[in-house]
């Protein structure tokens, strides 16, 4: 680890160093927003421009007061997000537990792998939205159905990556376990899990994005419960176009944060190796 220069922060130098990494994204995003605003102002599209998020009173209020709760479904964006996230948390946790468990079993057992791999590959291709009607029929209730949709969408990358991680345990590590005559349990905790961990985390990271995608889909199709998906659906029903834009931006931001979070966790795990 190199030491950071302590003698004062030199803005000019910092700029010189990071210009190349900061300028292009700023220009890109700025250009995109400008284009969007212009096309909205000039009437090329009915979609309201980014500035409308602030100029329109409804969205400004939503931006400024994310925590309000007027009862029922009339809540601030943060509260909507929290209920969506709690659903994601449940479905995703379930997916992680089942995915890692089954992944290990499949990774260790060639026969199991042969038996189920085609099924997994097939199921993983089914879009989240397609699961919604099936989930509703299965559970008859919105909440468990939504959790199931998240679960079934996000399990595959975890499962497949875990299985791959187990299969990829280097023969050397297996040989070490063999030569030391490790018990099965010790092999599990001392070699299998640590060795497959990077793969598992890759799966978890891909899955968190999928889970977040799935919740929006589930909530839009299953209205009546608070959540960011419902928020957009509601805005659509009422014709609040800038609300929809706000919702979309919010979803993107949360997804980005979740992904970054997992990425950070992943690097934390990886540096421990």
């Amino acid at each position: 680890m190199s030491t950071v220069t302590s003698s004062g922060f030199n803005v000019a130098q910092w700029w010189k160093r990071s210009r190349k990494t900061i300028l292009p994204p700023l220009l890109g995003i700025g250009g995109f927003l400008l284009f969007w605003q212009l096309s909205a102002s000039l009437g090329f599209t009915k979609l309201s421009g980014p500035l409308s998020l602030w100029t329109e009173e409804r969205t400004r209020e939503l931006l400024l007061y994310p925590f309000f709760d007027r009862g029922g479904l009339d809540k601030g964006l943060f509260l909507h997000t929290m209920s969506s996230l709690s659903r994601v948390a449940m479905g995703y946790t379930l997916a992680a537990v089942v995915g890692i468990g089954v992944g290990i079993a499949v990774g260790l057992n060639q026969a199991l792998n042969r038996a189920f791999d085609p099924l997994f590959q097939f199921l993983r291709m089914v879009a989240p939205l397609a699961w919604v009607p099936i989930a509703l029929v299965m559970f008859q209730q919105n909440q468990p159905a939504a959790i199931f949709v998240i679960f079934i969408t996000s399990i595959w990358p975890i499962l497949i990556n875990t299985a791959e991680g187990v299969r990829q345990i280097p023969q050397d590590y297996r040989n070490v376990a063999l030569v030391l005559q490790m018990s099965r349990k010790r092999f599990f905790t001392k070699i299998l899990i640590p060795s497959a961990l990077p793969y598992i985390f890759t799966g978890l990271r891909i899955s968190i994005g999928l889970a977040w995608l799935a919740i929006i889909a589930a909530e839009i199709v299953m209205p009546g419960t608070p959540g960011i998906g419902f928020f957009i659906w509601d805005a659509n029903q009422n014709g609040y176009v800038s609300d929809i834009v706000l919702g979309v931006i919010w979803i993107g931001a949360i997804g980005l944060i979740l992904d970054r979070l997992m990425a950070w966790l992943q690097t934390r795990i990886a540096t421990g190796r």
Partner: protein
Amino acid sequence: MTTLVAVQDVAKDFPLKGGGNYLALKGIDLEIRKGEFVSLIGHSGCGKSTLLNMIAGLDRPTGGTVLLEGESVKRPGPDKMVVFQNYSLLPWLTVRENIALAVDEVMPDLARSERDAVVEEHIAMVGLAHAAEKPPLQLSGGMRQRVAIARALAIKPKLLLLDEPFGALDALTRGNLQEKLMQICNEHELTAVMVTHDVDEAVLLSDRIVMLTNGPGSKIGGILEVDIPRPRQRLTVVHHPSYYSLRSEIIYFLNRQKRVKQWQAKPHKVLARHGLEKVNLDLGFIPLAACAPMAVAEAKGLFAKHGLDGVQLVRETSWRGITDGLLDGTLDAALMPSGMPTWMTAGGHGGEPTPVVTALTLSRNGNGITLASRLAEQGVRSVADYRDYLLRTNREPHTLGIVHPASMHNVLLRYWLASNAIDPDRDVHLQTLPPAQMLADLKDGSIDGYCVGEPWNVRAERERHGFPIVGDLEIWSGHPGKVLGAREDWALAYPNTHIALTKALLEACRYCADPAHWNELSLLLSDRRYLGMKPELIRFGVAAGCCDDTEAAPHTLFFGPGVNRPSRSEHLWILTQLARWSEIPFPRNYVEILERVCSVGVYSTAARELGFDDVSYQRGGIALFDGVPFNADDPIGYLNQLSIHKDFSIAEIPIGVPAPITNAAS
């Protein structure tokens, strides 16, 4: 010492993807004693790692058994710990945790504190106390391998197995680690088996070196005992007299394996054309002035002229390569020392007696005995001076180089020494060296002198490392030098090819014998394909001022009356000499052997067809410098009358009935 590991008739085959089996190893027998360090060496793919894995129990043999202390090895275990080539440290654990993992696993009965003490002791043993808390990825390759060794030793295995432990390290680190490993092995009297492809590493570390042949069906090609005393030091080991001979033995073995592999890689269908049974021949030679007829036959298209349009000359570095090439069939025929046909026929090479025939003597003379210049500085001028010198310094080892036990050099040198009252086995030590190595050894003082063919005598004199003490003309002028040799079964299978080959070479011999061609010959032989040295060093006449009485005569005879015809009495004389020095027992059936070795018929046919009738008659008798008469009718009486000889034996040599090779075997 008791046997720790016994590998008994082990074989291993792997199923191939496309069906069928790949036989990696077969018939491996090896006993490893307690406290011994054994290396397995061979080319990649020879199955040495497979063998190690089977000893480790990581792999099961498909035939035979591996016993550790008398019990069959069925699965891996900590009593036979492996140090893997790529270290196999767990990257998510620190150095200490890696070692502790093994100790905890293997010694669960010890108290926590005792286990910690074991871990710390072994970290300190490999000098890694400062890095104990680091994960392996932050360490250099050498440090990681030290951790792996520490981990292996910490669990006190009965047997330490090392799979190319230092293969991935730089030379300096490797050297340090080798010393460290040696030291640890000495201190703890470890038994170890190491797979390596590094010849120096094997010699430095091992008590025995097991050389494996190429797959498929690799087997043990030889086991070398390393008699260098311990403790060994890298820098002093290289000065031990055995070091270079062991080293060259291994390198010879590995090169031989490589050559066989290359040979096997090419198609070897017998091509019959022009009324000849086989026209694609691999002919062996070693770089000496006497290989001139072969070079000429190739360069002048004489092989093709006689129908042999697929001849390849194969350059070997030692006569041993020629012997092995004939034995394993990679050579069809070869240039060989004149003693080699009878020597191989009598089983002198240590295997089954293998009848070898010669139809043509390619050269006569061309040899000499050279002594080192430092002996001249001590006043050695004549053989009497040399005898005095040996008496004066009889405490020191006196080594003379010869090229092969069956070469004329060995026989003539011994004869000359013995006739001058120097016992070639007691007063001096004769060592077999490849001709090209002689000069280097003379230069660095590891030998006192040598008897070898040109150009090595001329070169020693030119470069002032040695001086000629006696020329072969003074010992036996006109002695046979090199002959054309082929296996009897080969010659019987391809009789017309044998005649064509003899014709081509006999014609080449005539070309070589003409002094007008000598400059051209020197230039031809200086090519890298043959000798690869300056043309002025390759001489066929006598250097002026060396041997005054013979100056005008050509030194090496290639052609002339009685020069080329294989002579039974000469080969008989050689047989007596080989028996005299116990290279072979004297064959009771010597008449049969000579009859079969000397293909006089092939020679006569070849000479007649070339119109060289005048060269067919018999040469005069055998006349050596000391005037002891040789009676070809009573070889045993002759042997008994020679004053200095070893306790020779007389035995019937079973050589079977003459039979051609079957095409399936070729």
